[in-house]
């Protein structure tokens, strides 16, 4: 792999009439696992189609695995494995033949495609079920077959659209572990679109957040989490007094019963908390830095867009998205390189 970036885009714009699906998207995605997050209608599907080289751009440019997305769609798709969110399998075909056919469509020799089909079906845990027709498969097995189809040519980049959709806990765990292995053991890159923060956090070390066609955050998850550093304390007696005191002291406090989370502004925040506790005669029984999850990060970013959300699930209801005016005013998070 001679290319430095797996995906680069420069001011990518795609309009459908008056509707702007992608609005000046500039990305630089490194090799490895990257999560693609965003509410319904944010532009994820359009971005995926762009990466696959399937749509004509209004303006802008980009490369995927070193190939121009505007002119080299076929070369890109030969090196990409795409796992769609929705059903894409022929129900009455046997899994081994479905996967083999997926390989033949890439240009694989039929004999090699068949041999590789056995290999990848074993890899995704369907070795003993590979001669069953797909209509007899559970949702998890169908998802695994889709993954096998996307891995048959040993692609440099695997694009997974909601890979754990409809899976139970066990199947979900296996799917995530398998994808993780593709990255860690196989050394391949993954671009994973999902609305389940835990899934993204399980596999990816970088994310891209899209909202209304714009990138609102991108970068390493650990770096992005730095924007949401909080101190969590457990108090005893007079929690309301302490909350008021902290708020009056200019600190941002979130409280659930005896547990409070205070946004860490600087090193003095610890001293301010203890001083407020001493002043209000409240015992602080525990104080520690709170490690935010990706879910917390998502909520914080959306709150900065001016929208109050309780969980990421609220955001995936397309009716609950904040206005783009606020999004446009938002200073972009991340450095554009992920």
């Amino acid at each position, binding site marked *: 792999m001679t290319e430095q970036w797996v995906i680069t885009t420069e001011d990518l714009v795609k309009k459908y009439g008056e509707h702007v699906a992608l609005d000046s998207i500039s990305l630089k995605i490194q090799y490895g696992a990257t999560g693609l997050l965003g509410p319904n209608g944010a532009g994820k*599907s359009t971005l*995926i*189609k762009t990466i*696959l080289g*399937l749509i004509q751009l209004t303006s802008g440019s980009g490369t995927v695995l070193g190939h121009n997305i505007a002119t080299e*769609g*076929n*070369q890109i*798709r*030969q090196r*990409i494995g*795409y796992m*769609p*969110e*929705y*059903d*894409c*399998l*022929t*129900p*009455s*075909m*046997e899994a081994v*033949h479905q996967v*083999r*056919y*997926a390989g*033949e*469509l*890439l*240009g*694989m*020799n*039929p004999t*090699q495609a068949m041999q*590789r089909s056995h*290999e990848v079906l074993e*890899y995704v*845990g369907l*070795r003993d079920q590979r001669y069953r027709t797909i209509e007899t498969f559970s949702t998890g097995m169908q998802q695994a077959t889709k993954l096998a*189809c996307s891995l*048959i*040519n*040993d692609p440099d980049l695997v694009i997974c*659209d909601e890979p754990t959709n409809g899976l139970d806990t066990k199947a979900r765990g296996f799917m995530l*572990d*398998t994808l993780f*292995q*593709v990255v860690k*053991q*196989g050394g391949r890159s993954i671009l994973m679109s999902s609305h389940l923060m835990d899934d993204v956090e399980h596999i990816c070390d970088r994310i891209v957040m899209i909202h209304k066609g714009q990138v609102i955050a991108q970068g390493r998850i650990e770096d992005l989490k730095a924007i949401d550093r909080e101190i969590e304390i457990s108090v005893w007696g007079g929690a309301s007094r302490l909350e008021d005191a902290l708020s009056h002291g200019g600190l941002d406090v979130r409280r659930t019963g005896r547990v409070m989370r205070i946004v860490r502004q600087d090193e003095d925040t610890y001293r301010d908390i203890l001083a407020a506790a001493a002043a209000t005669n409240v015992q602080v029984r525990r104080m520690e830095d709170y490690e935010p999850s990706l879910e917390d990060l998502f909520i914080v970013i959306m709150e900065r867009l001016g929208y109050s959300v309780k969980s990421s699930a609220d955001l995936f209801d397309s009716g609950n998205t904040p206005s783009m005016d606020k999004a446009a005013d938002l200073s972009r998070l991340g450095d554009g390189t992920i």
Partner: protein
Amino acid sequence: MSSDDDPWGLDDLIDTIASAEQTDDGGETPVEDTAPSSEGPAEVAADSHPAAPAAPVAAPPTPEQNVDAEFLGESGLAVTGQARMEAAYGSGDGDEVMHAQVAQPAQVDSGTIFHQIYRPWNGVLNPRWVRNWSIYRHHVYGLFSKGHRPWPVLTKIIIIVVFLGALSPLLMLVLSSLTGADELQRFFGVTRANLWGHVFGFFFNNVCCWPIVTALVIGGLISEDRQNGTSAIYFSRPITRTDYTLMKYLSAASILSIIIVLTYCIFYAVAILVNNEGWSYLLDTFPYFFAGLIAALLLVATYTSIGLALSSVSRGKFFPAVSLIGLLLGSKMLAFLIDLLFETDVMYLISPYDNLAHVGQWMMRLNTTYDFPVAWSFVSVLVMNAGSLYILISRVNSLEVTRE
């Protein structure tokens, strides 16, 4: 104690356990982890229930055994319930070294059930024509072998029946050759009318055979890709929509050609062979045969265009199949009724079959059975094909990769 008094050998086992317990320091007796474990003793959990050794559990309790002794895995000791409370509530000061007797997973020392190892592939991907060939092969080979497009069994049976039915004139041809009867030769031999009739004869081929086979072949060819979402498999790979449409078209046309054109050619070849005809006969009849061949290909192309257009506008195979039969036969029926009522046959221009038959008559230099010029029929055929292909292409362009 004799084995007759203690058939399960319980007393020996109890003695063994009691002697082992004498080595303990008494008092608050910890519950020992007796099960083999490679991970060391497990922590006491609130819901963990220490189990007794296997043999005593299976045996009925003796009068001396306390019920709690089974819980503790011991016997013959005073039961205070303290260990159970420790396990459940952790009532001690927290410094005890507690062990729970818990079930351990079986340790597999040899053999591998499943190793998830990612294997790279370093093969070379073939060029565009190989990819296109795979689409064609998938659809056409599916009729004959397993592992390709899973055609329904009923479709396969009907195709075989129609194929054999289209070859049935061969029997009469052979019979006429053997008997030398002129009447049979006129009915079943190679003549312009018979060659035209093989392809364009309304009864029986164009009433039942060709339309039904076409309907079954094209029914799900594109509509099922839309229904099952398999278009994503195609278009997320280096398959262009042009390639996809062209290969689907060629696949359907090839299957129809096997039924219509191949049987037509076989009919002509067998006629030459069984009658032991010479080169002069071949020179005389070949132009008509060739004209009929072109007309047959035109029929296959037109039926395929209309059928695939109907398939591309729907989900599932029922609508395109039924609507194709309705279109082919319904337009013919409508034109026929108007001809009967108003004595004008110009409405046959809306019937694909009649237009093709008219063009076929002209190409084979037969007397036409229509009053309007053949050019009108020819233009009508072109318009039908162009319209169908426009619908087909525009609908294939609407097939989605990410979402349907």
